[in-house]
């Protein structure tokens, strides 16, 4: 009788290697770490993917469209974004150089804009299977409807709509912070988990009795992902906060190395591959 494939819920930080949209070395490392397991996502993780990658990319494309050159756009984007999307800006710059569009902002904006459409398409292709949407996220399932003939206008419309917070989200019921025995409350009381930023933020929201909209939800994403994880699935993550979160919820997790760490492995052939969080396997 054939052995059942292990089921992996891929957390937001582990998406690039899961999509094979990173360096071949890192992709190979990821494939080895998950062996022949089946990959799953959730609507909530899809929401985080859209917030972090798709919206950032759309923003870069639209600023680029309104600037004469990439150099002008880069100054504005670095001022607006701060350090956060440095990776996105580097990838865009590399792409524009490679495709010879760096001095033509019209073509460059389209070159970048199409990445948003293609990345989301790739995500939906790789993660056709999703776990139940327990948090009832209302924006994670949104479609990016574009037409190549009106690409930037369509991306703009998507971005604007995506930024509008849902004010009556059922995530408040899912968390049940008022109930002493709720799992979310358990995270707040756990010695290790409560040190994580997402749990700290959750604690503040709970203390203030804040109605959680998409704006607040963006600050407690890790906690929601961990709470949504089904018991029989293993969470694959790069972000080390999940070691504590999964530990607190007694759920299986696999902490894989970051891109930088994997690059270091190659310099040190004695290093081993992925490290599995204690008690997870």
């Amino acid at each position: 009788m054939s052995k059942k494939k292990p089921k992996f819920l891929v957390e937001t930080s582990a998406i690039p290697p899961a999509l094979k949209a990173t360096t071949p070395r890192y992709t190979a490392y990821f494939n080895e770490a998950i062996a022949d397991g089946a990959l799953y996502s959730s609507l909530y993780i899809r929401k985080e993917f859209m917030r972090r990658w798709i919206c950032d990319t759309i923003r870069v494309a639209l600023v680029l469209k309104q600037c004469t050159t990439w150099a002008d756009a880069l100054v504005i984007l670095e001022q607006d974004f701060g350090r956060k999307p440095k990776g996105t800006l580097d990838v865009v710059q590399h792409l524009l150089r490679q495709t010879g569009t760096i001095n033509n902002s019209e073509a460059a904006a389209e070159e970048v804009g199409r990445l948003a459409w293609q990345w989301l398409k790739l995500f939906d292709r790789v993660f056709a299977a999703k776990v139940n949407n327990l948090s009832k996220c209302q924006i994670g399932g949104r479609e990016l409807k574009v037409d190549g003939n009106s690409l930037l206008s369509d991306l703009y419309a998507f971005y604007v709509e995506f930024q509008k917070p849902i004010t009556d989200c059922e995530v408040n019921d899912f968390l049940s912070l008022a109930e002493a025995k709720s799992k979310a409350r358990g995270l707040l009381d756990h010695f290790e988990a409560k040190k994580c930023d997402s749990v700290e933020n959750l604690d503040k929201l709970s203390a203030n009795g804040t109605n959680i909209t998409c704006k607040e939800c963006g600050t407690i994403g890790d906690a929601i992902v961990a709470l949504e994880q089904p018991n029989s699935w293993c969470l694959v993550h790069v972000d080390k906060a999940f070691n504590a979160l999964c530990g607190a919820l007694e759920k299986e997790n696999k902490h894989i190395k970051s891109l930088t760490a994997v690059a270091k492995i190659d310099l040190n052939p004695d290093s081993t591959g992925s490290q599995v969080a204690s008690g997870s396997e």
Partner: protein
Amino acid sequence: MARPRKFDVPRGVDDIATAPITKSYFHEIAPDLSAELIEDQFEVPPRAHPVRVRIRSEVIATGAKQFRSIPYLASVRRRNADVLSKMVLGLHEYADRPDLAVYTYPLFSKSKQMLELLEAGEKEGNARLIIRMIRDTFMNGQWENYRRSDTRTVVAALIEGKLIAEDVTIADAGAVFDKLADLGFNPVGAELPAMEKDNEQEEAQVPC
């Protein structure tokens, strides 16, 4: 006394001294949008009274416009797609060579040229999406897939089927994305940056 030279003066006008002078210039923009200069000079004879000189300059863009028209750009796309499709099939001659990358260079250049030609086409956006995906298959080592005959056949058929059509739709672009992914290509062509956390410290990551 020498009679002043007549210049665009209507015949039969009694008072030659007050008749207006009209001069017309036509600038016809060539399809290649090259700059041209029209230079002229004329003398206005001495008059007892002021005379009105009317200069009329007209830019004629009809000729240039037709080279940016929707039907014309569609025909440029179809013609070039036909060439590109044949170039893909032609790769079979080099499929076993270790330097295959060199022979995919003209296909990469052709795709880039097509993008430049169609850049102004307001109805060529979906075609450009497809051409970019095809172009990306000749980048970053992905050309290795062209060693396989099924890859060459499928990509050539995609180019013919989707880019030689009358209208190219977003559904066509989506179908090309799926087919290329089925063939083992990464149709996005750019690496997804590693995640950078908003407010949480974790081990340093560098972009892909």
